[in-house]
């Protein structure tokens, strides 16, 4: 079974600084997708970034980028120029590329942004 591990229950960063959130996963599949979701206090899960396993290039969305290391099964999220609005719970998630449509989530990392 696939598992997703986020080893950092909590992280903090100063405004305008850079922070990296860690995620590792376990799978025997070669075709899959990885996601980072943000959940602010409003509870609304918002997709931050996604990565297709077959792509070697790391995904980037404005201030958010990933470091995808397929062999190491690592998928970290880097947030540059952190803003107060980035404070939230961040979840890493995995989805198999086949007919299995379920997302498997990590337990999350609570990010605090200090002014």
């Amino acid at each position, binding site marked *: 079974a696939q598992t*997703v591990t986020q080893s950092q229950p909590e992280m903090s960063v100063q405004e305008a600084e850079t922070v990296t959130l860690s995620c590792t996963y376990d799978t025997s599949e070669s075709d899959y*997708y990885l*996601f980072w*979701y943000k959940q602010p206090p*409003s*509870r*609304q*899960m*918002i*997709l931050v970034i*996604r990565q*297709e396993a077959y792509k070697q290039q790391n995904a980037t969305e404005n201030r958010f980028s990933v470091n995808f290391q397929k062999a190491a099964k690592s998928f970290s999220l880097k947030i540059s120029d952190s803003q107060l609005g980035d404070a939230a719970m961040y*979840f890493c*998630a995995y*989805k*198999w*590329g*086949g*007919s299995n*449509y*379920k*997302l*498997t*989530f*990590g*337990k*999350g990392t609570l990010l605090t942004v200090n002014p």
Partner: protein
Amino acid sequence: GAGVSQSPSNKVTEKGKDVELRCDPISGHTALYWYRQSLGQGLEFLIYFQGNSAPDKSGLPSDRFSAERTGGSVSTLTIQRTQQEDSAVYLCASILGGGSTDTQYFGPGTRLTVL
């Protein structure tokens, strides 16, 4: 509507009572998921609906849990004879086509508290 909506936002009930949670997916989205988020945990898959196909109920924790999706749109998650361990945030998500590359769009969730 523009996004996935869920009602009620919060629900407090007494142990042993039945509750119904509602999800309105994004118009035109054919697939719908229910997840449960317990305190300090990631999201746990409960059930998946795709078009007119039989739902995948493999994540439902007990036979006290059931869900329906009427007319391929609105879904209701019912929990019978609620227990204190059912207390959690229940999240609904929808996707456009049910393909492996589709992004899940989440609602704000219903926070269920069983006293």
